[in-house]
């Protein structure tokens, strides 16, 4: 069975946009030319990935208190939320 992500990619977490954030972060953090910028010298690519994945996990856990925009410290344990389950908008082709 093959699922097409179409031009933009497949929606996953936060599938409201055409490209899943996790897919994007795979590429923007682990990919791209790594130049030593003037201000980001201390941040190596690997650290970025770790940092961001932690950010993702934490905020998934905190997702339900996301109603208030200035979010306090997110301390909820990471968990997945069936509401966010991918699939909406993805066309499945059974083979």
């Amino acid at each position: 069975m093959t699922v097409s992500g179409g031009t933009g990619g497949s929606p996953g977490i936060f599938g409201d946009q055409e490209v899943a954030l996790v897919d994007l972060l795979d590429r923007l953090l682990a990919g791209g030319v790594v130049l030593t910028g003037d201000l980001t010298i201390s941040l190596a690519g690997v650290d970025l990935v770790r940092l961001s994945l932690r950010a993702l996990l934490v905020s998934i856990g905190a997702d339900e208190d996301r109603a208030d925009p200035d979010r306090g410290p997110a301390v909820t344990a990471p968990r997945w939320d069936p509401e966010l389950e991918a699939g909406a908008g993805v066309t499945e082709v059974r083979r």
Partner: protein
Amino acid sequence: MSVVTDSVSYVYAVGREVPVGSLDDLTGVAGREVAAVAGSGLQALVSTVPLEDFSGEKLEERLQDLTWLAETARAHHHVVDTVGRAAALVPLALATVFYDEARVRAVLEERGAEFTRALDDLDGRAEFGVKVYLPTGAAPGAGEKGTAEKGTGEKGAGRTTGTEYLRRRRAAVGAAERAMRSARESADALHDVASEAAVRSRRHRVHDTALTGRTDQMVLNGAYLVDRARSGEWRAAVDRAAPGEVTVEITGPWIPYSFVNGEDG
């Protein structure tokens, strides 16, 4: 030169023959407009952004704020993807920041040859992603809440004894392990086919279920650099090879983020 400024230059990508009009009406990170900074016959796509948001310390903090991270990543991607449709581009990693445009120009001069090589390499090529998941239903015992799976809870048996429960549980775990092993092998085989039909390939780390928001376990998160003219062929090869017992998702075409670093990529 140590002029005190409160803004810095955020660089998205370096390109060649970027059409002049393609940056009009384009909104980048922090809602800023995008300009081209020229040097060595190349153009860097740049936005002037507030220093306070992009200083090293601040950035480290900001990267843990998902709202900010998502907005910035999407804005970065929007610029790269939009301009990349009209010109060859080498994307930079997220949040590459220089003091000012003069520094960006200097980097273009210093590394012009390198960028030109990368542009030659990526021109006319696109990246595709292949993700393979083992469906929860295929791995008995993986879904705790038992999404109406047959076999795990036969009705006629009535109440199960502790021993019976354990026996079934053990069998389910064994089956789940076999299903996972077989899914990994399928994923490896598919990766081989997809790689062979591509110019280069690379495996990103697989996502935890917490990240994907689904119960299916990811077993492959591959990226493939493909000649645009042959992307239909590549796609067909992957479709043909996609095994039935797993779910295969294809994403793309992407600007080749995962392949900017040459052969080792």
